[in-house]
């Protein structure tokens, strides 16, 4: 059992005009096995929340705490957070020229597991994970995210999640840019990891269609840098019909 606890989180970014507050007091608890959907208008701060957990240097935490099983996440370096069991599937995965997917995956898995994977089983492990996500094994030899299509980048994020086996995963619009089949394939990947290791999920999305595959236990409405409403899966349907107009002044 793992537990990610966010309390009173305030986050700012440095802009040319000075510091700008984006998150204004976020409270959220995610336990192993739970799926929390986060929905909210563009620019409301969802990615900021995701990046803040992962420790992106662009964001400054001005108040609040984030703990994973009691350990202070905000005090950890970016790689320590990953080793502690946090995983962020990014909305815009980064290209790393000259670094092959296979080298990247092996290096990451070695860092997270604390030892190099056995050569004999490793190749098979990667191949199987790729096949399950309908990724051509030729991707192994390509450079990380370089020239990948939008959907291929998202599959590659989930591939990493399958291999790194986190405790808590934040999926930032993993469904955006996926075709109908890819959405199902990627969702199945997420559900596999969830079933295998009781993953806790924070799923940021604009659409309910992914929620048909990955069933949320909770839906949170995010607006103006805060969670403004919480409910069950029925809340997602309501949002899809009515939009966020009623939260506009929140």
């Amino acid at each position, binding site marked *: 059992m793992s537990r990610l606890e966010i309390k009173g989180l305030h986050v700012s970014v440095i802009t040319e005009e000075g510091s700008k507050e984006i998150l204004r007091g976020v409270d959220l608890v995610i336990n192993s096995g739970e799926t929390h959907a986060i929905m909210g208008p563009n620019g409301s701060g969802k990615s900021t929340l995701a990046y803040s957990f992962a420790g992106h240097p662009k964001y400054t935490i001005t108040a609040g705490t984030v703990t994973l099983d009691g350990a202070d996440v905000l005090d950890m370096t970016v790689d320590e957070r*990953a080793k502690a069991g946090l995983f962020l599937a990014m909305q815009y*995965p980064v290209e*790393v020229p000259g670094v092959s997917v296979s080298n990247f995956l092996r290096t990451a898995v070695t860092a*997270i597991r604390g030892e190099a994977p056995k050569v004999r089983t490793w190749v098979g492990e990667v191949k199987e994970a790729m096949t399950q996500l309908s990724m051509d094994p030729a991707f192994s030899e390509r450079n990380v995210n370089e020239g990948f299509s939008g959907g291929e980048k998202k599959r590659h994020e989930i591939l990493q999640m399958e291999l790194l086996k986190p405790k808590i995963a934040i999926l930032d619009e993993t469904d955006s840019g996926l075709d109908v089949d890819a959405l199902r394939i990627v969702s199945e990947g997420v559900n596999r990891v969830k079933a295998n290791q009781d993953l806790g999920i924070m799923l940021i999305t604009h659409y309910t269609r992914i929620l048909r595959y990955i069933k949320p236990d909770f839906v949170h409405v995010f607006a103006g840098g805060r969670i403004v409403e919480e409910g069950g899966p029925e809340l997602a349907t309501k949002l899809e019909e009515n939009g966020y107009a009623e939260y506009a002044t929140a």
Partner: protein
Amino acid sequence: MSLDTLTNYMTPTGREEPWRFTPMNRLAGLHDPAVELRDRVSLEPLDIPSGVSLTIEASDIFPPLSDTEDQIIIRVRESASKLLLLTIDANAEINEPVFLKREVLDLSPEVSRVRIDAGVNSHATIVIENSGDGVIAEEVEINLASGSNIKFVTLQEWSSRAVHVARHHAIIGKDASFTSYVITVGGSLVRILPTVEYKGPGSSAELFGLYFATDGQHFEHRVHVDHKVPGAKSRVNYKGALNGDSARTVWIGDVFIKATAQGTDTYELNRNLLLSHGARADSVPNLEIETGDIVGAGHASTTGRFDDEQLFYLMSRGIPAEQARRLVIRGFFAEIVSKLDIEPIEVRVMERIDGELSEVKS
């Protein structure tokens, strides 16, 4: 040097265009006629395969094959009484690289004149390895007979006290291919002039370079490609990284397409990665085209800082900062290093860079 030439010799001051980036006071007198240059042959072969011969010749029997205005190279021509001649027989297919090594230098200035003659349709790889201390002015002329295919690799893995000024001039015959790798990862001041001229159609040159400068190092590469004959091709790709506030690099890429060079195909590229705020990389691509009848001509030059987004992405997958940095730098150089195809050198160069990266300041 005779008195006669002494009077004609113009000591560069550093204000001249070709010298304006070079810290003249760090040349250890290589440009100064008052400083005598030791005259000997310092390169040693590792192994000479059959089909290749290495001889020491009297310099005046082998006059230079090309023109130069570089004052230090003019001094080399005038001071060297011997020439190291490497000959590759016509039609020879030499599969293993021919290594020439220079290790026993000290900090007294000296000269070196080398010539490589590649026979008709010959294939070979030649590697010159420079390490340790040294203050040396050098000219290497590489003469590629028609249909020959030569890979020419020079490694500057000098100590941080060494000074090395060199011209590598390739004369490329009809249907001959010249590929060069200039790898500069050590030295106090290294100034290399990789220059190319073509003798016939179907000739091609691929000039690759990799440099990594740290505090106190000045690495300068001045590429010059002269397209005078029709139907020749050139590709230039130099990549450099700078680590340390007083690291300096200069890259000049002169490509001239003369009116007689119809059907030329050329592209040159230089990318620099600044790992420290004070580091400075000058990059000056210069493409001059006198005929409209070409296949293609282009150039690109970028100088940028380390990409923190790449670092964040790798670290968010559990990879520690230092290792992530190394991965990104290795990735940056990969397109050059992986083409080299001489594994022990690839490994050695990347390990040296890895080691010096541990001292990254941002």
